[in-house]
């Protein structure tokens, strides 16, 4: 399809397990973003890629969170040793421009992955 695709849509894991969430951005989009959205809250910034370079990871809540985008297209967000507070919807967004042009390019969002940690 033409939009941002995320998989899986739903993920249930036991506390302590590792999980990996995938994002396929819109083809040709330079910028890719991950957000965490807790219940009743707005999306919170996690990290930002420009092509394969991770330019900002200051929003990652702990060193258990790791994101990569090795070929500048698909990105994976990995959470190690999951905790109950990691339960949230994880949103991926992409935009056409690079960092210098970002502010003029709106972000296009995927449907998100709803992660539940038992």
């Amino acid at each position, binding site marked *: 399809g033409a939009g*941002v695709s995320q998989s899986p849509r739903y993920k249930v894991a036991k506390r302590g397990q590792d999980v990996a969430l995938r994002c396929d951005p819109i083809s040709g989009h330079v910028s890719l973003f991950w957000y965490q959205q807790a219940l*009743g809250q707005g999306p919170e*910034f996690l990290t930002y890629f420009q092509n394969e370079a991770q330019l900002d990871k200051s929003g990652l809540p702990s060193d258990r969170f790791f994101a990569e985008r090795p070929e500048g297209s698909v990105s994976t967000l990995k959470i190690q040793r999951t905790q109950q507070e990691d339960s949230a919807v994880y949103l991926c967004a992409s935009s056409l421009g690079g960092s210098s042009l*970002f*502010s003029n390019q709106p*972000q296009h*969002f995927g449907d998100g992955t709803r992660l539940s940690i038992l």
Partner: protein
Amino acid sequence: AQSVSQHNHHVILSEAASLELGCNYSYGGTVNLFWYVQYPGQHLQLLLKYFSGDPLVKGIKGFEAEFIKSKFSFNLRKPSVQWSDTAEYFCAAYGNNRLAFGKGNQVVVIP
């Protein structure tokens, strides 16, 4: 750090009523402003955006927003809502290389 405030998290109104959702941001420098909408079961979609120029911005589906720099506000309006406007609305501000979202307004339009 950039922050965005939205008030009246839950809004219930009848069809044909007017809607106004408030948004205030904290960043004092140059900022780009957005309203996103999330219809039930769908992903976030851009409703309208402000970068520069005319502070009154027209968006899709009859929505508009007014940027008032002196008040750090970017309120969303629609003169006459429809049942299909039932959704969650998020205000967002871009500054310092990141997009900050408000907590959202859950709007329910009763037919």
